[in-house]
């Protein structure tokens, strides 16, 4: 069974490129264009992993993860966050929200794919 990954970004070009990369490598991909839509999609689709942008309208990536962590069913979904902001998120916040990895934009789709596979492997191992 292929793994289902939710990609959340307000840049459609980024959504498209990440989706193609993942699909080409055997993943099932669903997309959302902002944090609010991402949260709703996550609840409805229960993906194996979420790749989200940091800064988005309506609800930021961080706000979305905060809400997901409060929900019993989505509490443990691993999250990779993409960010174009120069600032680093504090380790404490990273731990609190259980964010698996931060990748800064511009990012390499290849590297993103590697990170996704690595994290999913670790999850299965556990």
């Amino acid at each position, binding site marked *: 069974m292929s793994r289902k990954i939710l990609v959340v970004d307000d840049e459609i070009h980024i959504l498209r*490129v990440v989706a193609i*990369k993942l699909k080409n490598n055997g993943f099932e991909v669903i997309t959302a264009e902002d944090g609010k839509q991402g949260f709703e999609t996550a609840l409805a689709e229960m993906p194996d992993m979420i790749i989200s942008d940091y800064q988005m309208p309506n609800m930021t990536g961080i706000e979305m993860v905060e809400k997901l962590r409060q929900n019993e069913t989505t509490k443990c979904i691993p999250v990779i966050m993409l960010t174009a902001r*120069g600032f680093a998120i504090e380790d404490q916040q990273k731990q609190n929200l259980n964010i698996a990895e931060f990748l800064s934009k511009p990012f390499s789709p290849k590297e993103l794919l590697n990170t996704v596979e690595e994290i999913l492997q670790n999850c299965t191992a556990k």
Partner: protein
Amino acid sequence: MNIPAYIIIAILLLSASAGAVCAYLYWKKFRNGIDVIINLLKKGQMPHSRNSDCDFIKTLSDTIRESFNENVSRIETLQRQTKELDIHIKLLGKQKNSIEDIIYSIHDVVIVSDSFDRLSMANKAAGKLFNFDVEKSKLMLMTDVLTGPGKRLVELINQSKQSKIPHVKREFTFANEQKEGIFECLISCMFASDGEVSGIIAVLHDVTKEKEISQMKNEFVSHVSHELKTPLASINAYAEMLADGEAQDEATVKEFCSVIQSQAQRLNRLIEDILNISRIESGLVKVSKDVISLAVLIKEAVEMIKSYAAEKDITVNYDSPIIFDQVSADRDMMTQVVVNLLSNAIKYTPNGGKVSIGTEVNESEKIVRITVTDTGVGIPEEEVQLVFNKFYRVKANNKCAKGTGLGLNLVKQIVETVHNGKVFVKSKVGHGSTFGFEVPLCSSLEHSCSN
């Protein structure tokens, strides 16, 4: 060091009385000589009757004349010195007042304490900031004068007094119900001849504005880098996908290439906009103003965005009016203003909508007013006034279109900074917006306008 006025007055009084005593003594001596001559004359002993008498009187009168002359010159010297001292005192008084006036009027807060921790001097700014009466508080204990946020300053002053470090620079944050600010606080020690601290001078320079500017600059840089990185991220990702052969058919390869191209153009527009805004802000922009007709310029701008409007099936109405609408303007910049307003209107108007341009000449106010009205999504009331701010984007409308948040700021800069005009906006959510600007009209009598 200033010589205190009372010492000068004492010296003056002493010298004056010494002069008077001298004068009296000499006058007495002089009178004695006169008396001797009078007695001799009364006795009938005429000066020429006896040689010895004659000689005596001659010597005597010479002595008297000498001492008299001597006295006159002494008195004159004393009078001159008194006058000079008087002038000197007045001058010192004036200088003292003027130095006090200078310190009193300095924009920075100046507070001086003496070795007994009392307030020896404070200026107007100090009284205003720490809310105390500068005159009445003189020689009061610093702890009584500086209360509330001022307590921290007393602490800093005491630290300097104890450490005897000549100059200490600190950041001092002032905050109470009425006002708040950040100050650069420089505390200096005054030293007496024995090396002890004889007083402390605290100077507080308001750096609130500078701090705000630096904060804004940081936000700007962070925002710009975010805006630049977004198209760059796409370019980078799509290029890598192409290189890795992830585009599996001809159509996908084409699509990837066109994304790279459009994102590169977006990046270039962004850089151009940032550069233009920064050039205008710093006054480095080259402006070449000509007398032009806005109606003609708008017609050209409408032609430019025609294909964009057609893509969204939006009609653009502009009936170029036959009016005198000559303005002194930089043609390229003004075109950019009109194009920016038009493309914004099209961008935020759903397919099949309408955009209309209006031109109005107000002869009495000598202005031309241009309006661009759309049937678009509109702007929430609380955000309307913010849309001209750099990087501001209406959150709810973010979805409708991509933008940098620089276009309207550029419009504002060009209209207001370069052309002495004014921008305005009216909007209603769901109904549409009217963006516009007005610029000074060239007088119809003159063929050239002053810039």
